[in-house]
């Protein structure tokens, strides 16, 4: 009986290239909990950390009524934790943005490997674009440059704001940008002018590639990990000549969107959620890749095992190894 009195919550997990984000929302859409954990090349471990840390809270105070995953690792983690919905990150980000801002027209989202623009009219996505095949100008490139300059990424934006005269940096390609930055540093430019220059270069690159041909209208909401960078925010608002709204929970908007999607799909349904909870990490979970030899495509298949026993496979073009319930 007591179980029924616990508050129903919905979990969203955004399994991104650089971070894994967790959001827990209540029936009233309130954000009850958020976690931002660096992936460090091991998404399963990062999700395990996120869920194990919140385990007690989730299991004693709440009843998880639904769960959804998004992000580039959504299939792997979704199958593992028993997600009710596995959704692409465009939809997830749009759902979250429209939830917080009902008058949003443009969503700028810059994450670890992807950058996106989403155009919204009357709360409906009408157009979007993602960066093509190059990750220049996304979070991981900024990460790399901050390391090279010996500056904590958290201070990167403040450095940029110190600059009065940002120097010009070629932002078309990450490799060119780096050599351009090194050149400027060697001829005597100050670090903060170079960093501010990089911010403007990335913004221009974003607007010329991802934002090409898109109608960028107010209200503009900025989300994704890079929205922490005040230098980039400034560069956007100066270049566009418009106000940039940074979402309060900019770093976990994808996860919040996923949680909202989980709630929408589960609400009113009689079926029990498939969500397995942190318990699925009690055993030793590992993933391994192998090359399928059935045809000349030689697809790489990821095999996920639990205590040495195969749980499921993903990958491959033909579906031969596809996940089955």
């Amino acid at each position, binding site marked *: 009986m007591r179980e029924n009195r616990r508050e129903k919550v919905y979990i969203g997990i955004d399994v991104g290239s650089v971070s894994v984000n967790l959001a827990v929302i209540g029936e009233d859409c309130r954000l009850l909990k958020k976690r931002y954990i660096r992936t460090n090349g091991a998404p399963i471990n990062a999700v395990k950390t996120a869920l194990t840390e919140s385990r007690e809270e989730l299991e004693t105070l709440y009843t998880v009524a639904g769960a959804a995953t998004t992000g*580039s690792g959504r299939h792997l983690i979704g199958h593992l934790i028993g997600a009710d919905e596995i*959704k*692409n990150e465009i*939809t997830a980000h749009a759902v979250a943005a429209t939830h917080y801002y009902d008058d949003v027209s443009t969503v700028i989202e810059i994450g670890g490997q992807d950058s996106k623009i989403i155009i919204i009219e009357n709360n409906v996505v009408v157009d*979007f674009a993602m960066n*093509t*095949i190059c990750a220049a100008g996304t979070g991981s490139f900024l990460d790399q440059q901050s390391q090279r300059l010996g500056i904590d990424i958290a201070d990167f934006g403040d450095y940029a704001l110190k600059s009065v005269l940002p120097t010009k940096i070629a932002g078309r390609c990450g490799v060119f940008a780096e050599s351009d930055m090194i050149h400027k540093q060697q001829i005597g430019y100050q670090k903060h002018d170079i960093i501010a220059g990089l911010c403007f270069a990335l913004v221009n690159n974003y607007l010329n590639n991802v934002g090409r041909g898109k109608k960028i209208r107010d209200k503009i909401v900025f989300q994704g990990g890079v929205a922490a960078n005040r230098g980039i925010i400034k560069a956007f608002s100066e270049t566009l000549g418009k106000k940039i709204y940074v979402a309060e929970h900019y770093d976990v908007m994808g996860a919040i969107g996923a949680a909202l999607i989980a709630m929408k799909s589960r609400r009113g349904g009689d079926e029990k959620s498939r969500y397995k909870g942190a318990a699925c990490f009690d055993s030793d979970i590992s993933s391994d890749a192998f090359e399928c030899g059935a*045809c*000349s495509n030689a697809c790489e298949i990821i095999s996920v095992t639990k205590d040495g026993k195969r749980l499921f496979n993903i990958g491959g*073009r033909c579906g031969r190894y596809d996940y089955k319930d």
Partner: protein
Amino acid sequence: MLDSSNVRLAVPRTLLYYRYFPLWQTFFNELGVEVETSAPSCAAILKSGSRYAHTDSCLPIKLAFGHVKSLFDGGSDYMFLPRFFRLENKSYVCPKVIGFTDMVRCCVYPEKPALKRGEGPYIIDNLFDVISHSNEKVFCDIGSKFSSSAPKIKRAYQRGIERHDFLIRKRTSIFKNEILRKFKLKIGVLGHPYNVHDGYINMGLLGELNRRDALGITYEDMPSDDFKCDFSKFPSGLFWSFGREIYRSALYFMSGLDFKADGIIYLAPFSCGLDSILVTLIQNEARERNVPFLNLVIDEHSAKAGVITRIEAFIDMLSH
């Protein structure tokens, strides 16, 4: 001239194969020539092709090299690699396609051009240029390698054309009368035929659409004569044959003549010069008509995740 009763001809499953294979197959079979094609594109073919192609080649050309290479040691007598130059007045085939025969000669064939049996299949490299010779004349020249009877060759060509026309009519009629009604969403898929119809290169785009209750409609589905397209706003009338096709089908998909596309997907390899211009051109036309547009860029990535994310998001958007 060889005894054509046991002559084998290799046709790489690439480039204009996707448009004309039924014609070619019928023509050669009528002359008693056995036609062998390469296997559908796969990772192994791309890997081998990338070794032979110049690094700045586009993805389909890299793949095309792989197809030729896979047929090279197959023991065929001939390799069918004609030069497609001008298929209609005032417009041209892409220069990489025109030059493909010569690139193959330089890169795949070890030393000199194969002239005798045993040096790799002999390349049939006749030039298709409708301005200097009719297609029929070119086919007659090709056919004379396999038969000395001019009427027989002519008949083989006629049969080939009939087959080609029959399949097009059949396809457009099935499309109009049956397939069009079966899916919730109708999506115009644009791109060169060797990208749109090669399921390996485009990560199974058409199938992925079908799985999501969406129909991918291609140039081949459109009725050939019903729809007129005005090219007069382009000073050069749009230079490239495939460009004309792509532009014309884009306008047809958005016309509402037989249907109105819910969205347009333009499938373009990263380094295609022609597509880079057309994408913008068609994106503008789509915006004017309020038709959602997605540009899918393909390259040598083997992971499907990026393409699937974009398709999924596009379908989600159209479903609302």
